[in-house]
């Protein structure tokens, strides 16, 4: 995966979560499935998406939440 794709991927993840704020709680697994589909032409794999999520959470752009199950969200 190129750095460019990686940046796009991370952007797409954040945007998706932003778009559905208060509508849907994205479980990390949902994100993986969504992004694998969205970036299939770029050959993005499950591990790529996981790495992107890790980047986003390590940097604090996304945080984890819990409500009976874990989900990703924007920092409060």
């Amino acid at each position, binding site marked *: 995966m190129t750095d460019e794709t990686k940046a796009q991927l991370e952007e797409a993840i954040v945007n998706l979560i932003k778009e559905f704020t*208060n509508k*849907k*709680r994205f479980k990390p697994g949902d994100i993986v499935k969504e992004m694998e589909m969205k970036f299939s032409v770029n050959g993005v794999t499950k591990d790529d998406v996981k790495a992107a999520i890790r980047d986003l959470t*390590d940097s604090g752009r996304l945080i984890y939440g819990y*409500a*009976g*199950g874990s989900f990703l969200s924007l920092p409060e």
Partner: protein
Amino acid sequence: MPDVSGTKRITDVGPHDYHDFLHPVIKNNYGKWKYHEILSPAHMVHVSETGDKIYSVRVGSPRLVSGSFIRDLCDLADKYSGGYLRFTTRNNVEFLLDKEENIEPLMNDIKKLNLPLGGIGNVVANIVHTQGWIHCHTAASDASGVTKALMDDLYEYYTDAKLPAKVRIAFACCLNMCGAVHCSDIAVLGIHRRPPKLLPDKIMNLCEIPSTIASCPTNAIRPDTYNGKPSVKIIEEACVFCGNCFTVCSGMPLSDPLNDGVSIWVGGKVSNARTKPSFSKLAVPYLENDPPRWPKVVEAVKTILDAYKNGAEKGERVGEWIERIGWPKFFNITGFKFTKYHIDDFRLGEATMNYSAQVRQ
């Protein structure tokens, strides 16, 4: 918060390597133990093929402990066991000694701390319990309180081996059963008896409707709208008050001081010894919450324990004893009333009926 900018945060170190915490005798005899002998309800010895011995002294703990409690243990360990100790899977403390002569002084010091010595062999084991009103938002009863009330009353059963086999009691404060309730000799379970109250605004803002609907074991939650927005309604006749909806949706609280309480379960088992592992079965459907000491709960547990002690054969677990004498006799001896609630009407309930003419008359 320390400034970590510029430095890479260290993560994923995982659990500490256990080797650093093993007593030298244990290190040397790891995997070589030959047999053990229970010397008293509070201590046992394990003997190695090499002839080495390790003594374990077991002490009861309330599990919810202060830093000072841990420091007390550390001081004792330093004094008698070279600083080595462990906890058991049921939250007892075990001091590991290689010197037999240290056992008695250690025990004396433990007594001075008013800690119980026991828990080994055919005793009432320490109660596996949960958070309750101390820390959990879904608790229908309190874990630490019921546990304390029970263990006060059953104290001699912990310190002396008076029973046909070990009796494992568990408590959980709600149907999530964080622990051992579903497979214990005797279990106490916090329960609700009224459906969730719907807080439509909270539901609208905080809850995912599909996962809320999916959370219900009896399909009692149905889609609805509130101010034109997706919401839920409840078919109250179908609700079994499990609280799973509240776990995923904070807009559906169930607590109701008038109707919350506990149920009592018996005959579960985890080990594979003799009989297969089995679930705890309903004995008493409901007893009210009666803090601080829940006397009716203590009495019900005592009733079961007495009946078991009087009726069971040596080595027979509670469930094995009941299976041998039959459930009708269990209800008869304990005086608990058998009701329609005892008949399993859930998913696999059919499998629990008596499909035979084998009936004691």
